[in-house]
């Protein structure tokens, strides 16, 4: 952990078929298990571990037809082990478990929170296959149904000796992505005398104070030292960026740990000057590669996506940058030379390589493990080239 330009993941990886099929279809075939063995060989995981985890599960499914909690846990644990080893093997320094226990960042959080009711799927992106997410409405005061990620955090500490960073969905994004059948109803009925904006604010405050903060506290008690708050919605309503800042501050108020925020596919210029109000944020984890050309070079014309870093340097010079250098929405593997140039460009703008953490743009859950592995490798190899280029 002493070298500069530490590489990090951002959160999710895809779930392998042998993790998904037992849950969705109650099946685990020999072909699925063979696929697990193939990756076990690539990741230097003993074949026995695959057999000891998946064969009993296969036998259980053959006789019972439905996955039970015990075998589901066994499969999840094995998937987490594979995801961790995949990142280690790729050369990533700061890890998580690929969110192998979480169906999706919003759905998982809402499922473990009181006060919400599911309303249906919304198409989010693309077609054939369309990406979608399950959306809920807030119908009562939000509170924790069960701790969100303490089991994952405790397990992860047994799986790796490397630094870990635990992602958790932020209060502003949870509120912004939910329908509102509670706070706004109070507005309509005049019950609380709230304006629509005030209703949204109260919703975000309640999630920050009564849901996200207690969860972060539980993560810290479970051994986490670094929590990444995921807020992809932070800039989507420009006049509510200050509310995102308030949500972050309330979520970590009084807690002792390292906290960062991940924001992606957003207009970062809208963050300023509001993010000067963040009180305990050590890193912005940001997406850049998606919007950056693939030609080599370190000047402005070759690396336009990284110019907004000048604003981060001007407004929040002490906050580090999780630097997106590999795209998560295509299968083209970035050349290490390209990653190098992106890291060098960013370092030249920020000035201090100790503030740069190269990473993928976002979680890699939409990519196959093969593509994800190669992109993580490119992240690590390109960063090594950048260290050499910068004389670090």
């Amino acid at each position, binding site marked *: 952990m002493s070298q500069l330009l530490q590489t990090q993941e951002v959160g999710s990886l895809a779930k392998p078929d042998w993790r998904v099929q037992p849950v969705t279809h109650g099946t685990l075939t020999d072909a699925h298990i063979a696929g697990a063995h193939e990756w076990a060989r690539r990741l230097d995981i003993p074949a026995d571990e695959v057999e000891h985890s998946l064969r009993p599960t296969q036998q259980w499914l053959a006789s019972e037809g439905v996955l039970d909690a015990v075998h589901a846990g066994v499969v999840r644990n094995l998937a987490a082990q594979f995801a961790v080893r995949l990142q280690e093997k790729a050369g990533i320094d700061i890890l998580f478990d690929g969110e192998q226990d979480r169906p999706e960042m919003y759905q998982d959080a809402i499922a473990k929170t009181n006060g919400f009711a599911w309303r249906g799927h919304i*198409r989010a992106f693309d077609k054939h296959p369309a990406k979608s997410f399950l959306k809920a409405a807030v119908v009562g005061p939000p509170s924790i149904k069960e701790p969100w990620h303490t089991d994952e955090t405790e397990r992860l500490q047994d799986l790796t000796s490397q630094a870990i960073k635990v992602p958790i969905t932020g209060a502003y994004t949870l509120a912004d992505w939910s329908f509102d059948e509670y706070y706004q109803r109070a507005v309509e009925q005049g019950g609380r005398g709230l304006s629509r904006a005030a209703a949204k604010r109260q919703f975000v405050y309640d999630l920050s104070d009564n849901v996200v903060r207690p969860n972060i506290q539980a993560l810290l008690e479970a051994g986490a030292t670094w929590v990444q708050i995921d807020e992809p919605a932070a800039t989507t309503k420009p006049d509510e960026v200050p509310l995102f800042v308030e949500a972050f501050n309330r979520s970590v108020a009084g807690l002792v740990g390292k906290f960062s925020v991940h924001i992606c596919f957003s207009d970062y210029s809208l963050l300023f000057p509001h993010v000067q109000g963040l009180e305990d944020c050590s890193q912005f984890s940001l997406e850049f590669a998606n919007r950056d050309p693939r030609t080599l070079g370190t000047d402005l014309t070759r690396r336009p996506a990284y110019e907004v870093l000048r604003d981060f340097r001007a407004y929040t010079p002490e906050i580090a940058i999780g630097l997106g250098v590999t795209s998560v929405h295509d299968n083209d593997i970035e050349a290490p030379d390209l990653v190098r140039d992106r890291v060098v460009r960013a370092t030249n703008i920020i000035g201090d390589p100790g503030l740069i953490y190269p990473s993928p743009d976002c979680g890699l859950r939409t990519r196959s493990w093969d593509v994800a592995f190669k992109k993580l490798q490119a992240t690590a190899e390109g960063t090594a080239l950048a260290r050499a280029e910068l004389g670090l």
Partner: protein
Amino acid sequence: MSEITTTVWGIAPWSSELLTLDGDVGRGRRDPVLRDCLEGVEEEQFAELLSEQAITDHEGSTFRWPDYLRPLVEVSEGFAASVDTAPVTRWFDTNTFYRQPVIQGPLRLKDSRAWRQLVDAGRVTEAQPTLLSPYAFAELSAVEGAVDESQKLELVTDLYDELLGQYEAAGVRSVLLYEPYAPYVGATPRDVSRLHDVINRLAFAHPNISLGLYAGYGDASNALAKFSQGSFVDAIGCDLSRTDVSRLPIARSQRFIAGIVDVSNTELEVDDKLHDRIRQLVARVQPAALTLTHQQELEHIPPEYAVQKIVQLGRIARQTTKEELL
């Protein structure tokens, strides 16, 4: 005021079943025929709902669209060839995304029958296709190679000119241009002029098509300011919940498309509130005719809630009489 009508526009929501099936097809787990079949059923059910609710003008084209840009890119030349590796970009303040078109040269339709891929050919004379306005399309696109930023609006407008020509020849009588960009960013006077000029140019060039402009995602009063007197655009409109109605232009010679039904939330607003919005609008704008609609795209709520919203739209339209508004 001559008449009160209703319109449902844009991309309709898909059911959870169709989304799951489409995902499975994309991953090679299910037969594409099953997906196409369910898509057809849901499209037909949606059309039946509109008919039951006496929605006067409706889409007839974009049920199958993944977003408002990609279909046009795919029937055109001059964009970067691979849409699938283009930057992923957030659609305004939502959690939905599109691939950013990259303009590399002059834009033109790939062939003379490109329109057939954008409109349901069986409903062509009754359909009111929704297209993203050329101004928004240009602003949401990137440029590459020999094309620079200053050229892209003209290039996109040329493409729309060609497409509207095909629509016109095919018998399409009405097109709705959807403008979310200018209100969202708070367009400057110069940008409003550019928006006005390109829409007006298209309206003038295609007199056989009734062209409407609907603005969303912000206060549209600035964006619509120049579209009243002397404009060739037949109809203007906006999301009334986000627009300062007192600043909208008087439009005595035009139809006004009033976005009254909130589709950003699953809750139904009370009918009285919607009637109030209509009365305030008519008192201010004094339109020649009135069309009632939903405020935003329907695709951001699940289909069962979209149905409730469309039923509310139909109910409000039936309850609203010309006499009441005069």
